[in-house]
């Protein structure tokens, strides 16, 4: 069973990964975006950690909802509402339970990913975070480790794709050959989940 402490450790691990990889995310974003993905997420996850410490939520769902709200209000770029929606919808789907099972989390995360796809109007193959998140959710039924591998493979698979969403889509053919920064940060989030689960 996954309790509130598990979710706090997951977000803390995700924040640490964002700190560690901020430079790489911004480098990826400078190739096809506006070169702020790393610094934007860094600002957002620092706010998440501060909010979790200031007002520790009592349930897994409340933890993700608080984190999502912080991301929407502090990130400043499109990744704010997208990641904010992912965490908030996942948290809402978990409801008030004090503990959740892994299958329940997989189902809730599936609802979160669907909400992100709807908000951004993106589908698999558009070279966005969906390309990492959808395969991750599909693999969660197997294990957290399988989800992390699937997310990473999904992110790498964005390299040859033509961007159809966001600023990268303005570049047309020039977006080909670069890994999508949003898919890359999504893979970090899922890797942090697997690490927190000890896988």
């Amino acid at each position, binding site marked *: 069973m996954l309790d509130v402490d598990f979710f706090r450790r997951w977000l803390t691990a995700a924040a640490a990964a964002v700190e560690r990889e901020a430079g790489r995310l911004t480098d990826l974003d400078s190739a096809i975006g506006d070169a702020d993905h790393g610094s934007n997420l860094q600002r957002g996850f620092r706010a998440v950690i501060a909010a979790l410490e200031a007002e520790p939520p009592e349930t897994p769902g409340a933890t993700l909802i608080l984190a999502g709200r912080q991301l*929407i*209000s502090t990130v*400043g770029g499109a990744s*704010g509402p997208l990641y904010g929606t992912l965490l908030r919808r996942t948290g809402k789907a978990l409801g008030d339970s004090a503990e959740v099972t892994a299958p329940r989390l997989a189902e809730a995360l599936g609802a979160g990913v669907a909400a992100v796809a709807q*908000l951004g109007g993106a589908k698999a193959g558009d070279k966005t975070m969906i390309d990492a998140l959808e395969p991750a959710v599909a693999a969660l039924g197997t294990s957290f480790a399988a989800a992390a591998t699937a997310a990473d493979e999904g992110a790498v698979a964005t390299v040859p794709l033509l961007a159809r969403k966001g600023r990268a889509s303005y570049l047309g053919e020039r977006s080909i050959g670069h890994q999508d920064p949003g898919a890359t940060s999504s893979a970090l989030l899922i890797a942090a989940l697997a690490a927190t689960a000890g896988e």
Partner: protein
Amino acid sequence: MSTGQPVGVVLVSHSRAVAKAVAELAIGLAGGGTTAPVAAAGGTPDGGLGTSSELIAAAAAEVDRGAGVALLVDLGSAVLTVKSMLAEGDELPEGARLVDAPFVEGAVAAVVTASAGADLDAVEAAASEAYDYRKV
């Protein structure tokens, strides 16, 4: 919704200067007597480029007279931020609506229409119609 009060207009841009200038342009072109309340929510709170849900919420509260608020936005994260705030349900005044319109032309149409006392549906329709005006 007929409250006798004007619809409010919020202009959300990635740039503080753009939001403010478009608000000035729309108010200037609405001209004449009293204009509907307009607020600019541009850039991040520290003045950088980006979108801030806090500035958007504050701007919407500022122009809300109970007759609804039309939010016009520029690009990417401005669209997504307003949509996610509307989905949350309690971050924007009742009757707040994301209006699908070109930013500058839509802002002028929205402010002129709102200043004439039109309701939110009419303000939205006027702003959206700005898409139909081809320039060449």
